[in-house]
């Protein structure tokens, strides 16, 4: 059954030595419970969550540390029980080596769970309810993209999903965590497939696995036969890098191509990683949030390469230590695989939801000096996105960011095939990453300047309005005064009185008049006072 299907090819790609056997020889080891867990608040694409705890709080395993803050966001949970001793900006595994807000938990060794509410009969729940559980469990795409899964499985009412593809290709060399997951947790993988299939109501489900993983294929097939599932199929695909890329895998399985600016759901396909499927199973059937993942610790630089079941937040240095430690020639620590991973400056970094592999390389072969491009076109031959890597490189290096977009820079999946085949050893992908982040930065600046323009215009308008209002007020006041004057004048004229009716003036005049009268009265009194003597003498005279 597994190989009855016709398969297609995607453009380009490479046959690479897989280097997976060294890490699949030993069984999956459970990493020891660390003393300190460092949990970055943002481990997904989208907006960072909002902190729900503070320093000094005791937390249980699975308790929410930060809640999703918007639709495209995901919560993070305490990977073990203990006490929160620090919440601060701490180094996170990121190519920049920058710090980000993290919660530090000192574990108490009890590893005590919160109360879990498993759903025993998921079929009785609606897809929306199950999506909500996935959202609360903080599940993100574990293939490396870390896009919130609850958002991805919400394909909307218009997109009908015909095919659910479960991606177990694991095409990148050295990494084997998905392989080990399928071998050891086949039942959980199938359960997760069924759940996701139910949530998106996909007609059938294809589990795609590269032909270099016969054990995983057999394990899954066994469960499918046992459960007699007719809509789930395991498909063996040829091992070509990067067949595990979302768009490449869709092409191989369905011959359909995802539009340049579209999503797989536009063509009725949804792709989920096998790790994500297991996380969905755990969230719904066991009630457990995403607090651990499988990590491949491998490379020539580690003494005992293996796969480990690791709590999120465990320090990478502890994983290396538990894998036998570094080889004496170990020189370079990479998170991810040799093709798409990025170099870390230190191993004192926490494992995050995105961390699928720690690769330690010996004697970091000195990056050879890049030579000029000779226009051989080898890069274009291998490009799985059918781009023109040469043109992209030239326009990116001369910072011609409009032209790189015309050449569809954003369809580049940074798989590194062009780098690998370039005879001049030009670090092509670095140029594309540089151009992408520059363009995003310009976009951010543009949004910010548009915002500033609106605020500036608004302020200008407000100032103008205020000035106008002030002028208007002043004008009205003046007008009112003039009117009043006019009215009074008119009133006086009507009474026939002289235009002068100022009460003040009148008062002054009255006062002056009073003073005059008083003075006059005083004068007459004085005169009177002088005359009585005369009068009295006269009187005397008349009496005598």
């Amino acid at each position, binding site marked *: 059954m597994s190989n009855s299907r016709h398969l297609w090819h995607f453009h380009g790609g490479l046959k690479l030595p897989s280097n997976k056997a060294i890490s699949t020889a030993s069984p999956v080891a459970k990493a020891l419970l660390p003393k300190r867990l460092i949990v970055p608040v943002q481990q997904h694409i989208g907006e960072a969550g909002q902190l729900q705890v503070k320093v000094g709080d005791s937390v249980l395993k699975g308790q929410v540390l930060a809640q999703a803050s918007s639709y495209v966001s995901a919560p993070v949970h305490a990977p073990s029980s203990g006490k929160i001793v620090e919440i601060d900006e701490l180094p996170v595994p990121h190519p920049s080596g920058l710090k980000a807000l993290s919660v530090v938990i000192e574990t108490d060794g009890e590893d005590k769970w919160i109360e879990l509410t498993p759903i025993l009969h998921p079929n009785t729940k609606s897809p929306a309810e199950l999506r909500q559980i996935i959202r609360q469990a903080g599940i993100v795409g574990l293939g490396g993209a870390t896009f919130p899964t609850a958002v991805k499985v919400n394909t909307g009412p218009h997109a009908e999903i015909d095919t659910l593809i479960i991606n177990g290709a694991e095409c990148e060399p050295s990494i084997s965590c998905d392989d080990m997951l399928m071998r050891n947790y086949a039942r959980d993988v199938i359960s997760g497939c069924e759940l996701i299939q139910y949530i998106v109501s996909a007609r059938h489900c294809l589990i795609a696995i590269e032909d270099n993983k016969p054990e995983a294929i057999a394990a899954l097939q066994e469960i499918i036969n046992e459960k007699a599932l007719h809509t789930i199929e395991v498909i063996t695909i040829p091992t070509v890098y990067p067949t595990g890329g979302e768009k490449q895998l869709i092409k191989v399985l369905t011959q359909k191509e995802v539009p340049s600016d579209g999503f797989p759901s536009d063509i009725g396909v949804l792709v989920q990683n096998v790790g994500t499927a297991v996380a969905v199973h755990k969230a719904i059937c066991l009630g457990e949030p995403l607090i651990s993942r499988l990590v491949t610790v491998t490379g020539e630089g580690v003494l005992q390469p293996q796969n480990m079941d690791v709590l999120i937040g465990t320090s990478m240095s502890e994983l290396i230590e538990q894998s036998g430690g570094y080889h004496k020639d170990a020189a370079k620590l990479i998170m991810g695989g040799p093709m798409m991973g990025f170099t870390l400056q230190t191993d004192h970094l926490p494992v995050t939801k995105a961390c699928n592999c720690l690769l330690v390389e010996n004697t970091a072969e000195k990056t050879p000096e890049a030579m000029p491009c000779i226009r051989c076109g080898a890069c274009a031959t291998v490009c799985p996105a059918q781009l023109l890597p040469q043109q992209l490189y030239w326009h990116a290096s*001369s910072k011609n960011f409009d032209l790189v977009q015309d050449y569809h820079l954003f369809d580049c999946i940074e798989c590194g095939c062009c780098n690998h085949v370039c005879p001049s050893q030009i670090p092509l992908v670095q140029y594309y990453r540089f151009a992408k*982040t520059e363009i995003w930065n310009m976009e951010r600046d543009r949004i910010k300047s548009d915002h*500033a323009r609106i605020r500036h215009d608004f302020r200008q308008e407000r100032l103008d309005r205020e000035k106008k209002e002030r002028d208007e007020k002043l004008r009205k006041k003046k007008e009112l005064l003039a009117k009043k004057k006019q009215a009074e004048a008119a009133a006086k004229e009507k009474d026939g009185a002289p235009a002068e009716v100022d009460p003040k003036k009148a008062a002054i005049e009255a006062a002056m008049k009073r003073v005059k009268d008083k003075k006059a009265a005083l004068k007459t009194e004085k005169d009177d006072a002088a005359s009585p003597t005369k009068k009295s003498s006269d009187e005397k005279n008349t009496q005598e």
Partner: protein
Amino acid sequence: MSILIAVLTLALIAALFGLLLGYASVKFHVEGDPVVDKIDALLPQTQCGQCTFVGCRPYAEAIASGEAQINQCPPGGESTMLALSDLLGVEPLALDEEHADTPEKTVVYIDEETCIGCTLCIQACPVDAILGAAKQMHSIIESECTGCDLCIPPCPVDCIHIKPVKVEPDTWRWPQPDHGSTAPQAG
């Protein structure tokens, strides 16, 4: 006679097209200068006045009328200059030496213990990014601050300081690979 017909015909055609043009100029009249809008859209809108004009739009108007060069915007740096040269079809000009590199983005913050609440900075801020009232402490709304530094000179107690915008993993940019010499300049 035939000359007369020719002259009359041409005159008639001229009059007809004259009317048509006159009508079109009224009907399709454009308010303002669309070039100014396009230039303004490329400017960083810090409203800082470092170009010697009182804001981004006046500078855009000056460029459109040919009074100003395209290399007078320090916050915009080289990328703005190149975008302007692209838009207007003029030769790119070198920026002043001190602004040759992409400038580091900054914002200001108020030392709130020193602030006396004089509101002078609020009046100076072109984007209303300062919160406060008379005799009350002021603070900068960082997300709205454009880094124009116009609030610094009016402050009587020198409590406004510049700080660089923090780079988060989200806003971090990959460096340009440093072997540019092998990269030919694309035409």
